């Protein structure tokens, strides 16, 4: 590693780039541990109420559109792929493919959030399934269906909020990447946002079956 270049990207409190890189990655993983516990609180409440009011949760889950959910899952996994390719491009110092992959990730993320809001949330709102706003469902198990939809909107809402924050940070990184600030010896910001993005994808990987596929559709 050429010293002149290394000193520019090495923060003063670190000995060498390896220590800086490992610290950044460990810091990101510890932050992901806090995110696991943040979503964990919601998953714990969900697990308790699902066992208490299973018929209501099944009825609520059957009102969701599984195909849109599956497509959205595929979109999100696609954005994970482009994210990982972006990190690889940064490690190899290929500026152009880094920028294109970052933009692709932002696009796929925005598609996911758009499909979520436009085709699912708005649709459910029009059908009178938004608890607290206009919940008019009066079939059997009405109150636990309302509880299910409270969980549905809260969990997908918190997940969408994390997506939007991720897209915001990615936008900043695209500009910096365009200016060539990221290369083989300074890519921990890209790797950090990559870990965060994959984590948000994993949360959706668990949310999709737990919310859409309760009790099976037969």
């Amino acid at each position, binding site marked *: *590693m050429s010293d002149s270049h290394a000193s520019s990207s090495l923060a003063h409190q670190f000995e060498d*780039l*390896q220590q800086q*890189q*490992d610290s950044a*990655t*460990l810091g990101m*993983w*510890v932050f*992901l*541990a806090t995110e*696991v*516990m943040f979503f*964990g*609180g919601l*998953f*714990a409440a969900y*697990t*308790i109420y699902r*066992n*208490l009011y299973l018929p209501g949760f099944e009825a609520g889950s059957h009102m969701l559109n*599984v195909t849109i*959910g*599956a497509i959205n*899952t*595929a979109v999100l*996994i*696609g954005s*994970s*792929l482009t*994210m*990982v*390719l972006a990190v*690889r491009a940064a*490690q*190899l*110092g290929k500026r152009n493919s880094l920028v294109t992959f970052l933009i692709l990730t932002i696009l796929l993320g925005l598609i996911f959030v758009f499909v979520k809001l436009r085709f699912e949330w708005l649709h459910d709102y029009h059908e009178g399934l938004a608890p607290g706003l206009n919940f008019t469902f009066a079939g059997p198990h009405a109150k636990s269906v309302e509880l299910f939809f409270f969980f549905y909107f809260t969990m997908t809402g918190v997940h969408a909020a994390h997506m939007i924050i991720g897209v915001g940070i990615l936008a900043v990184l695209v500009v910096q990447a365009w200016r060539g600030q990221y290369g*083989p*010896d300074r*890519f921990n910001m890209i*790797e950090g946002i*990559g*870990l965060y993005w*994959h*984590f948000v*994808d*994993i949360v959706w*990987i*668990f949310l*999709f*079956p*737990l919310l*859409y*596929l*309760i*009790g*099976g*559709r*037969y």
Partner: protein
Amino acid sequence: MSGHVIPKSSYFLVFGALLVLTGLTTGMAYVDLGPWNTVVALVIACCKATLVLLFFMHLRWGTQLNRVVLLSALLWLVLLIGITSIDFLSRTWTPVPERWETSSLQAPIPPADLLHRR
């Protein structure tokens, strides 16, 4: 110095596997397995999550410490859900088995006719 770099092809392989698993879990939802539906859905979700963790997030090649951090977070999640459910599962159980009931703590009750008029 740059982190561990692996060929593009393996990323596409993992991407393909994830899509297949998504299709599988959606398909399995239309098969009537009774209570097993949930178990199957969760097992598939865990496989997908492990794939993303190992290959996309480079846990496979990273330092041991990162794996410990993730495993302890998951353990804490299991602690939260597990111990909270102890309360919710056992709340409807009768507080005390039958034979414990005649507790020796009862004070001597005066002659029955005076009290037990019921």
